[in-house]
């Protein structure tokens, strides 16, 4: 996977996150450092409550670390204000959610057009149509989410995420609401698109099988992030 020129798209250095609670300060994790290169697929696993979602929010620039620094596409998030971080996200990041989060009143095509229109892309409908064709929904452009199966909805969400051509794609349990067979197909498609687009994929999952397919697997437990070997890495 590593090409001759490897580009670090996301890095974290000595990151800690603490919360003030009524019982005192709670430290979720500390001293977390990692580097993710463009095109890599990385799974973050860990038991419930370990802080996976919090780590994702820091890595995606949605929240700021209590200590340490996070750099996305060369920009240190702690040096940016909320507005600049929003711009950074808008330029480089997309999300795929467990519960799809499509807008119910928009049809498949309109759902994919929406982020393009928000960015002022001129040929939004054509692009959106082409993305939906790539995920196999070329025939169902004018169907509303309620008329699509769970798998189809997640495919629309994937098309929507890739349509803005992000550098980084964060996926939170993308198969959590799907049966095994559909989940498998969706993951296949996600990895395929990821390879085609040279996008960096950061997955949060409980699914060991899914995690094993990624290039790297980071396990968050007791406030520590440990790298585990994966089948994906073995393939290389």
């Amino acid at each position, binding site marked *: 996977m590593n090409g001759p020129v490897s580009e670090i798209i996301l890095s974290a250095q000595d990151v800690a996150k603490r919360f003030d609670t009524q019982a005192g300060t709670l430290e979720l994790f500390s001293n977390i450092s990692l580097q993710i290169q463009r095109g890599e697929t990385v799974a973050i696993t860990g038991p419930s409550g370990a802080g996976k979602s919090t780590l994702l929010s820091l890595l995606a620039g949605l*929240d700021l670390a209590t200590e340490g620094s996070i750099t996305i596409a060369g920009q240190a998030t702690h040096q940016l204000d909320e507005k600049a971080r929003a711009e950074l996200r808008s330029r480089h990041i997309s999300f795929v959610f467990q519960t799809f989060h499509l*807008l119910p009143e928009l049809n498949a095509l309109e759902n994919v057009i929406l982020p393009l229109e928000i960015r002022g892309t001129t040929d939004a409908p054509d692009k959106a149509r082409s993305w939906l064709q790539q995920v196999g929904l070329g025939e169902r452009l004018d169907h509303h989410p309620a008329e699509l199966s769970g798998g189809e909805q997640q495919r629309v969400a994937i098309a929507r995420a890739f349509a803005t051509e992000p550098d980084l794609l964060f996926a939170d349990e993308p198969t959590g609401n799907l049966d095994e067979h559909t989940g498998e197909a969706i993951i296949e498609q996600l990895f395929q698109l990821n390879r085609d687009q040279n996008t960096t994929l950061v997955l949060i999952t409980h699914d060991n099988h899914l995690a094993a397919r990624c290039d790297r697997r980071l396990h968050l437990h007791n406030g520590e992030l440990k790298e585990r070997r994966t089948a994906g890495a073995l393939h290389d």
Partner: protein
Amino acid sequence: MTNHSLLKLAWQQTLAANRLPIWRALLLALTVAISIATLLAVLGDRLEQSLGRQTAELLGADMTLRSGRPIDPAIAERARSLGLETSGVIQFPTMIEAGDNLLLISLRVVEAPYPLRGKIVTQPTLPHLPEPGTLWAEPSVLERLNLKVGDQIELGYTTFTVAAQLTSTPDRGNGFSTFSPQVIINRQDLTATKLLGVGSRARYRQLFAGEPQALKQLEARIRASMASDERLITLDNSNNNINSSALNNASRYLRLGALLTLLISALTIALSLRRYTLNSRDRAAVLLSLGMTARQLQILFLLQLLLAWVACALVGTGIALLLEQFALVLLSDLLPQPVPLAQPVFYGLGALLGLVSLITLGLPPMVAMSQVSVMYLFRRTAAPTTLGGRVLQLVAGVLLTGLLMLYLEDLQLTLILIGALLITAWVLGKFGAWLLRISAFALAGKHTLVRLLRLRIQQQQRWHRMQIPVISLLLALMAISLWARSDLMERWQNQLPDDAPNHFLINIQPHERDGVDQVLDNYQLNSSLYPMIRGRISALNGEPVATAFTPEQRQHNALNRELNLSWTSEMPGHNRLVAGRWSPQADGDTAYISVEQAFANTLGLKLGDTLSFTVGSFPVDGVITSVRAVQWESFQPNFYVIFTPGALDNMPMSYITSFHAEGEQRKVAAALLQRFPTITLIDIDQLLAQARSLIGKLSDTSGMVMLLTLLAGLILVFTTLSQELDQRRYENALLHTLGATPQQCRQLDLLEFALLGLVCGGLAAALGEIALWFIHQRLVLIEPVLHPSNWVLLPLTATALFTLTGLLARRRVDESNSYRLLRTLS
């Protein structure tokens, strides 16, 4: 993102939101608020224009002098010399007869030129004034006497031909006579009818029109020598007749209703927006994750509000205009026709108020929502209420109060009302919630679900505190308005003894006295004729009125107009002696008088005081020897002052009496009018019927507003029930999985609603009794009674309302798959 695509997204989002019950509640509340605000603004302006601000067209003149006595002809002369037009009008009640039907009318006697401003519209169209020997009558006269144009009517000693039907007319006069159907005759015919004699209840008006400068001069001249029972009506000074004061009271009542509706609607709008924005956090976070900025998000939701407003403004204004037409039909008899159109700005006032309320109430939750983080999609955390959010809410509250104050045009009253309502609501909420807890506690052990009910009551406490005051207040207001109306009319009538007089005879001339007595005897009617002389109090113990009485006492009606004086050797049977002794006769030159108790108390009159009167231009003195209690509502001739016989013998006088006629005896009316065409006979039943119709029409109009208020209240209850719907669904689903049957879950809801209904209904009944007690004791002056049916009907109504709205709110709950529900909701 272009504006066009934002607008398109807002449109799609609005259409989608229209399927959500909470959004529908918002739309309904906004529509009701806009309807009521527009209705009140438009109707209020039209009523005000037609009554409050006298226009020359309605007054029939630029200036009118009103008096209880003939107006000095010198005034008319003076007006003419100033180049003004002037005309005299005499108006008095009288009974007219056609076949077997008798009708109490108000007769208006006019002379050319008339009217000086505006015009009389008749059917068929006739010029100027009724020709001598003819009369013009309002449609209700013709209808009730079964007459048509061309028929003949007896009026006094003259037979008139009905020449036309009056369609609209200015100068309907003032006082109660304006409610009576009217008939206009020419002044030239008056003497021949012989209707006008001493003691007739005629009101005189002199109308003036012309150059403002000349009018000013005349006004100054008249004011300089105006008697206390004369009133000068100009275009600037507002009138003060029963008609407008009844409408003013109605309008105040409408405003109270409207204020309540607007406050309730505002609360509903705020709550439904809160729920809607809370439910939309996911959407907001998704849009942010797709790259939308917080500002674009705010604009998007603001556009959605605007789209909702446009729809509600159109529908709400439409409804208001329909209701306004309906109200005008109801009130058509009471208003001079045609009713002027409202100023254009008033048609848009409701919509404007709706827009400002929506934006004011919508901004705080919208801003809060736009601050949601994409993180919300990964980890559900409630956004903390920021200080900015609280400040925004406070600003919204203040702005809204200010807006209502401006709208209702009475800053102090609005502030007091809002304050009083808030305090009452707070107390009711606290007390009601306590009652709920106590009742649930008392029920413990009676039903297996009561334990759960207690938990539910604990949990829903904050919504109960909002639901209880709103529903109790609304039900109380409705009960009060219904009871006050029927109590006033029916119980007042019921309190009269069965044989209370139902006919008044006035204007009986001395030479007719024996004849009238004889006719009454022929019909076995028992009645005494009392002489009546009009006189004015001039001094007390030799000291003139201006110094003998305090300024407050000088406000008393009795010192500002001519009193009806009488004499008799025997105290009237329906009076009661409370102090002194009854003097049957004068002691030489010293006349004795008996005074009425309340009148004596107010004016500080004591036994032994000498009260001086001016009758015509003659002075008469009397020494007070007794004080009487008088039942004013007994429909017997009653007098403030009764002399011993002799002192008033040679003064101009007439006789008055009242009697109770029933069945065949009622024919006495026709017999009396045939033999004595000039006496004035007043049928109390007809008078009451006219008053009842007036009150009925006003309260029907208020009823319309009350219905809108109730609707607003129901939407609020629905909204509050929807607020914690997820909580209820979760709880019911949990109970399912723990073995409860769907019936038991429904029973728990029903139990809660029944208890809520009982508490609200009970509080409403109690509030109603307190308010009605006050109204009876202080305003209507009848013996307060309890209204037991309220204590049954109001709790039942409240329970029904809660159950109905509760069922509506949880209509979409799918209880068949509790496990899935539990998973999604937890």
